[in-house]
C-alpha cells in the first residue's frame, strides 16, 4: 500500500463511523460599520504603532507626497510595473523582471496595495501589476506603499473577502521585526527596515 493510501486508511480507522458534519457558528464580527474617515484614522494609528511612517494626502497629490517621503534616501527607486506614471518619483526605474537577487541594488521600492485592514494596520499585496512580484517588496531596504481610501476596510474578514486565494499574497503589518530576544519587539531584521505609507483620501 502506498503511504498515501496508508495514511488515509489510518484516518478512516481512527474516525470510525462518520459523524454528521458539525456546523460552525460564525457569531464574530464580519463587518465594521465605522465611517471611512474613522477607519482611515484607525489605519494610520495602527501603522504608526508598529513604527511605519504614514503620509496623508489628497488623491491628486500622491506623486509629490511620494517624492517628499523618499527625500533623503540615497539610491535608486524601483517601481512595480503597474504603478501609475503620476505616482512615480523622477528617475524611478520600472521593475523589468531581472533576476530577483539583483533587486538588492535598489534603495527603495514603490508599490500599490490590494487592500488595507484598518483594525490590524495590515497592507496586502497580491502580485498584481501595481503590487509587483513578491521579491520587489522584500529586498530593497525601504518600502513605500500607496493606499487609496477605497482600498481600506475595517476588519480582517472584510479584507480576506476581497482577496484571490490563488494569487501569491503578502500581508504586511509594519516593517520587519523580531521578538526573539527576551520577547521584546525590535523593528528591522531581514525585510525592509523602513515602511512608508502614503494614504490618499479626499
Amino acid at each position, binding site marked *: 500500500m502506498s503511504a498515501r493510501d496508508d495514511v488515509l486508511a489510518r*484516518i478512516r*480507522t*481512527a474516525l470510525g463511523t462518520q459523524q454528521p458534519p458539525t456546523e460552525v457558528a460564525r457569531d464574530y464580527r464580519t463587518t465594521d460599520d465605522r465611517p471611512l474617515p474613522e477607519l482611515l484614522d484607525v489605519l494610520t494609528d495602527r501603522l504608526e504603532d508598529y513604527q511605519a511612517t504614514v503620509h496623508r494626502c489628497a488623491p491628486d497629490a500622491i506623486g509629490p507626497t511620494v517624492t517628499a517621503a523618499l527625500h533623503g534616501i540615497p539610491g535608486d527607486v524601483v517601481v512595480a510595473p503597474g504603478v501609475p506614471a503620476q505616482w512615480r518619483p523622477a528617475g524611478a526605474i520600472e521593475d523589468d523582471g531581472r533576476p530577483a537577487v539583483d533587486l538588492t541594488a535598489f534603495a527603495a521600492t514603490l508599490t500599490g496595495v490590494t487592500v488595507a485592514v484598518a483594525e490590524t494596520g495590515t497592507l496586502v499585496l497580491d*502580485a498584481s501589476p501595481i503590487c509587483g512580484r513578491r521579491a520587489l517588496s522584500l529586498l530593497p531596504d525601504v518600502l513605500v506603499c500607496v493606499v487609496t481610501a477605497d482600498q481600506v476596510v475595517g476588519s480582517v474578514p472584510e479584507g480576506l473577502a476581497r482577496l484571490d*486565494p490563488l494569487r501569491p499574497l503578502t500581508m504586511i503589518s509594519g516593517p520587519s521585526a523580531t521578538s526573539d*530576544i527576551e520577547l521584546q519587539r525590535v523593528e528591522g531584521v531581514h525585510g525592509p527596515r523602513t515602511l512608508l505609507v502614503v494614504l490618499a483620501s479626499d
Partner: protein
Amino acid sequence: MTAVFLGIPTAPAGVGNLRGDRSFPDAARDALRDGQLRANLGHATTTIRGKRAGVVAEVPDWAELREAGRAIKAATMARLDEHLIALEEQVTARGGTVHWARDATEANQIVTALVQATGATEVVKVKSMATQEIGLNEALEAAGIEALETDLAELIVQLGEDKPSHILVPAIHKNRAEIREIFARTIPGVDPHLTDDPRKLAMAAREHLRERFLRARVAVSGANFAVAETGTLAVVESEGNGRMCLTLPQTLITVMGIEKLVPTWRDLEVFLQLLPRSSTGERMNPYTSLWAGITPGDGPQDFHLVLLDNGRTAVLADEVGREALHCIRCSACLNVCPVYERTGGHAYGSVYPGPIGAVLSPQLTGVEDNASLPYASSLCGACYDVCPVAIDIPSILVHLRAEHVEAQTRTTPEAAAFRALSKVMSHPRLWRLAQRAAGLGRFLARGRPTLPAALPPPASAWTRTRDLPTPPAKTFTQQWAEEHGS
C-alpha cells in the same frame, strides 16, 4: 478507542525529537537549580503575558472567534481524509507536487531525496515545528546537506549547539548577554564591538544571513495553515526570513502535519485574528505569506508539499485526546503555565514543551514513551483559559494519566499504597488507628509545618515532589468528640 487497539502506529523511536532521555521530574530538578534560566524565563514570559492580555482585550468578540476556531478545527478533523484529498488535488492542479509520509523516517527520506535531486548541498530553513519534530536537520546533515536555520531564535539555538525550548521563541531561555556571547563566538567576521542591544544583535543576524538567502537554491519550510478548497498555504512570521525562503530559491519544500489544514479560505479570517494576538501579542504579525502551487515569474518554480502523519492518526483515534490536534502552535499556554515558567522547555524532553506538549508528545509517541509528561502540570487550568481554540488541556492530562495507570501490568508502590488507603478509609476502626499512627509524624517534623522531604524509598518517589503536611495534634473527629460529646 485507542490507537494501540486499532493498530495505528505512533511516532517511531530512534528518529526525531519527541522523546527526552530523562523523565520530567529529573530534568526539572536540574532546571530549577539554574537561577539564570529562571530569571530569563520569568522576564520573558511576564513580558509576553502582558502583551497578549492587552491585544486580546481590544477584541470585543474574542469569545466568538475562539468558539469558531474550536468548531472549525473539530469539523476539519471529522472529515480529515476528504479535506486532505481536496488539498492534494488543488496543490497538484496549481503545479505543486504532494508527497505523503507515514512517519519521521519517511518524511526525512523524501526531503533528502528532493534536495539531492537539485544538486544543492545547502538549504535555508524557515522555522518549522514539524521539521524539528522529525529531526530533519540531522537527517540532511547525515546526507551531507547543510541546513541553515534563518529565524533569529532558531539561529541562536543552532549556533549555540543548543536545543529549542519554546514553540515560538526557541531561544527564550537565553538572555541578550548570552546571545551576544554566542554571536561573538560563532559568527565569522562579526563586529568585535557588538553590544547586547537587541537591535544590534538583530542587525548582526541580518548581515550573517543576507548573502546566504541570496545564493540559496532550495528552501524548506513548515506551514501554519493550508486551505483545502484552494490549495493555499500560509506561513506566518515576523522577520522576513520566511519571505526570503518562500520567494527567492528555485525549489521550495514544505513539510506539514496533516492536521494543519482548514477546509475553506474563509476559515483563515478566524485564525489570522486568533494566532498573532495569542502568540506574539501583536494585532497582526509583520508578514504573512500565502501561496497556491507555483506562479510563473514569481517565487519558486518547483514546489513540493510533504504531508506528515508521524503519530497524528494515533492521536486522532482517541476521542478525548484528539483535541490536541487543534493546536495552532501559538505558545500562549507555555507563557501562562506556572510549571513551564519555572522549568523551561528542555525539561519536557520533546520539541513540544509546556501544557500542549504534555498532551501532544505522549499521544504522538504512545503514553509509555513520555509517561512523566501528563503529570507535569498542577492542573490549574490557565492553559485552557488562554488557548485560542479552547483545547481542554487539563481534561486531556487527566485522561492520559488514567491511560498510563491502566497500562501498568505490575503493581506499582503507589497503586499498593492507594489500595491499602482505600481499605483503611472504608473501615472506621482502621481509619482511627491510622490517624493515631500518623500523629507520630509530629516527631519527625519537629515543629515544622511540613515533614522532611527525604523519606526513604519507595516513599521518596512521592515526597520528593510533594510537601507532606505535619499531621495535626488532634484530628477533626477527636476535636468534635471533645467539644460535642461522641
